């Protein structure tokens, strides 16, 4: 009996050691591979949805939120962010849905207190949600705010931080949150601990989102004539350097394509067509003024693994759109069905 007990203790010890040194590899969830297609949805119809493209089979699975939760998303998806094991679907119709990354099953939501939410950041058990606030009679948004939610799986808004009009993308830089505010063309710097705006920084162009390149934080901005890439000082948050690219009527739909090798990819709405333009941060020049062209382009995404560009095409908003896959040579690989207004892509 004593031997049996000893053997059992050895077994337990062995298991514990093996668990500590060789963690069990959990299988990845169905939606942690492939490509997630963000379909914004049509105004007034609230038919935003997420589709899933399986790279190996080439199959596009529609409406994965509705399938996982047995209810429609019922909103216009402005942005999707990923923090920890959750994905945050930010709807500009005033809600945030929080789902598990692996199977898209809902774990919570923020659906009270938001009006026109745009993007989200999660840190230290809090959610910070940029929100344009209500429109006034002149279609301005004078009461924009950053909503603070105490809890990473949703809940009620605990505080609204008043901020410059039309806050859009957000990022961390150091221990501060930077918010791109469109209307006054500035960056607002927020201290997440005391939830106050500490300073603002003016920039050229209308700022939209932040991205990282070569261990530095950049801000994407544009106007009717140019695209701007502002490199930010990590301490003062001021603009250190600005690269200006001559691209007319570039659009921003809440998502963007960045190759990771220093190329920004943008859509330029031109007179009779939409043109995909490549910009090199390394040289500060337009590297390809006409990488690909067509009609009704709306969203972009770049799959680093396969070096494939994904273009969302909205079909004139008359129905569902499609996704065009473009190879590195600028040739169409295939065209896949998508939802209403495919505006962005996420590569887990």
């Amino acid at each position, binding site marked *: 009996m004593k031997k049996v007990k000893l053997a059992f203790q050895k077994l337990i010890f062995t298991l514990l050691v093996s668990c500590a040194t060789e963690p069990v590899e959990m299988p990845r969830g169905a939606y942690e591979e492939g490509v997630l297609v963000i379909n914004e949805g049509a105004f007034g119809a*609230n*038919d935003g949805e997420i589709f899933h493209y399986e790279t190996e089979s080439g199959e596009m699975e529609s409406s994965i939120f509705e399938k996982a939760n047995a209810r429609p*998303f019922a909103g216009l998806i402005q942005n999707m962010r990923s923090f920890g094991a959750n994905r945050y679907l930010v709807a500009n119709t005033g809600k945030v849905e929080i789902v598990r990354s692996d199977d898209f099953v809902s774990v919570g939501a923020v*659906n009270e207190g938001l009006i026109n939410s745009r993007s989200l950041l999660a840190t230290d058990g809090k959610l910070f949600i940029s929100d344009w606030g209500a429109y006034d009679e002149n279609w301005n948004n004078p009461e924009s705010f950053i909503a603070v939610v105490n809890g990473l799986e949703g809940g009620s808004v605990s505080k609204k931080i008043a901020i410059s009009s039309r806050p859009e993308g957000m990022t961390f830089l150091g221990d501060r949150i930077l918010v791109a505010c469109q209307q006054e063309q500035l960056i607002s710097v927020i201290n997440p601990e005391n939830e106050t705006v500490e300073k603002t920084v003016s920039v050229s162009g209308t700022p939209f989102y932040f991205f990282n390149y070569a261990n530095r934080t950049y801000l994407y901005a544009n106007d009717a004539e140019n695209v701007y890439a502002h490199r930010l000082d990590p301490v003062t948050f001021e603009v250190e350097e600005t690269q200006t690219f001559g691209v007319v009527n570039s659009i921003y739909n809440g998502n963007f394509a960045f190759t990771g090798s220093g190329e920004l990819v943008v859509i330029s709405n031109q007179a009779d067509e939409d043109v995909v333009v490549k910009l090199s941060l390394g040289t500060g020049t337009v590297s390809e003024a006409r990488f690909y062209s067509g009609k009704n382009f709306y969203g972009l995404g770049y799959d680093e693994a396969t070096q494939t560009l994904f273009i969302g095409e909205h079909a004139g908003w*008359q129905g*569902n759109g499609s996704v065009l896959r473009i190879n590195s040579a600028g040739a169409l690989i295939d065209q896949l069905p998508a939802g209403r207004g495919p505006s962005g892509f996420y590569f887990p």
Partner: protein
Amino acid sequence: MAVVNQRIPFLAIVWLLLPVWGYCQELARDTVELDPVEVAAVPMRTYAYGQRIRSLDLSAAEGPSGGSVADLLQDRTGLFIRAYGPGMAASLSIRGTSAGHNALFWNGLPVNSPSLGQADYSIFPMAGMDQVDIHYGSAGALYGTDAIGGAVHLSTSLSRDQRRKSHVKTQLGSFGNWGQEISHQQRLQSISFRTSLYRNVLANRYPYTDWASPDTPIRYQDHAAVHQQGWVQDIRADLGKAQVLQASVWLGEIQREVQPVMGSSSRDVQNDTNLRAVLDYIKNGPKTTWNIKAGIVRDHMEFNSDVNLTLQALLAAAVDWEPSARWQSRSGVRYTRIQGDLSTYSHSEQRIELYQATNYKPLDNLAFSLQLRQLLHEGQPVPFTPGVGVSWTFGKSPVQQWELLGAASKGFKVPTLNDRYWVPGGNPDLASEQSWSKELGFNQQFTNKILQFSNRLSLFHMSVDNWIIWLPEESYWTPKNVRKVVSKGLEYFMEWELKQGGWDLGWEADYAWTHTSSRSVAAGNEMDLGKQLPYVPIHKLQVRGKVKNDRFSGFVSGQYTGERFVTSDNQTALPAYSLWGAGVSRTFSWKKWVSGSVALEVHNVWNTEYQLLRLRPMPGRNFQLTIHLEL
């Protein structure tokens, strides 16, 4: 504005009018006095042999009379109303067409908004009319612009032999809904008048499943209240010598909290104030009837803080002429001035229309209609619009008759003011939308002392070209003539009534099968080719059984609406649904001077959860009590 050269048809219209002018001059020299039996204009439907026109029996529809025309058409016909919620904006689809492809008239006045090109059927409460007629199919030659899928005619009717009558009606319904209507009618010598006032309140606090929130909680609609009030005035003056002057004025106001789509927290409000006024001079002669009409329609719409105002002024004259038992003719002219002061532009324009309609009956059982219309829009002709129909009656006996019908007609729609002048994006070069419609019909009627029944079957085929779609351009949306749609289908209507002892038993069914197919689409929309248009149900069936005796009446009604696609590529659809309702009513009288009725109705008996449009919940089971007094 794209202009099509239509010189020959235009001359043909003028040529057709010439003999009428000549006849009219002759009339002026030779006045004939008549015993004034009932002076009335000849309805346009007179010239619609071969086409289907259904008049709704409003006396049997006392239940929904507190609602709107939208409710009536949804509940009582095979037509589909696209409503954004109870009391919210509602548009009509006839034969697979869009909201702007149907003409709506009130006492002969076109009341489609010239800026939107369509009517909101929910702002027309039943208190403002005595009769509703539905004309199915293209009828541009009869009614002018917008009548591509069909036309709906609302009209008041002031009887000259009614001395004095007052009505009071109160309705109480579920979800905080109520309505009141008061009307008084009187005749003073040769002048009859009727004044009606109404007020409807829809709190719309009904529960619904919130599919947009985790765990799909049950919530109560909290931003869908409707307050509606109005005044309708009818006056009729018998001038003698078979002449009558009649006027109607309708001033209505509706304030609405716009029910948000599920998942949105919008708090939009819309206030509409509508003034419609029409004046008719009618003179009956032994073989002619003159009708001179003047009217205005003023629509003031305030959406949040945006104000849109349109004004239509109309002046029209028509003469009906019956030279022999075999010929009947109408010649007319209509002038319209439109002024639009919208939130982003102002524009005014003029339209003049000449039209001619002729009936010819070579045999007692064979009749033909020919309709012609030419509209000049800002002095430029839009495509000439003809229509033709035939009716052949056969197998006629004292109790039964059969009828074969056929019609072919053209319809058109002048681009709306918003299509042409909205800033930004308005496209002044748009061409008119055009349709060609063909139909075949079959009627059967049986009548004896105790039983009446009738069957009506229509088959139609319609092609709409130059269909206008707003498409995104470089930095804004702009409308273009891009789509071509073919619509075909079948309509079947059956009605029977059995009289047994003191009881009347009745049954009616109205079924529509509508198949649409996009034949030409905008570049990039090839997936839409051959697909059914959004929110056009392939099947809709409405049935109604009724029973009645001297004091008691009751009904059971059912409605089936088939699957509706949400998008033009048919990838998403809303499920079919069935709704059932029932009601009982009892009449009473007290002393000699008060009579009335009490009615109780239940709608959506099985508490079916359904959406007419996606993510816009509709009410579940609800009750309505109506008390109607006549003094």
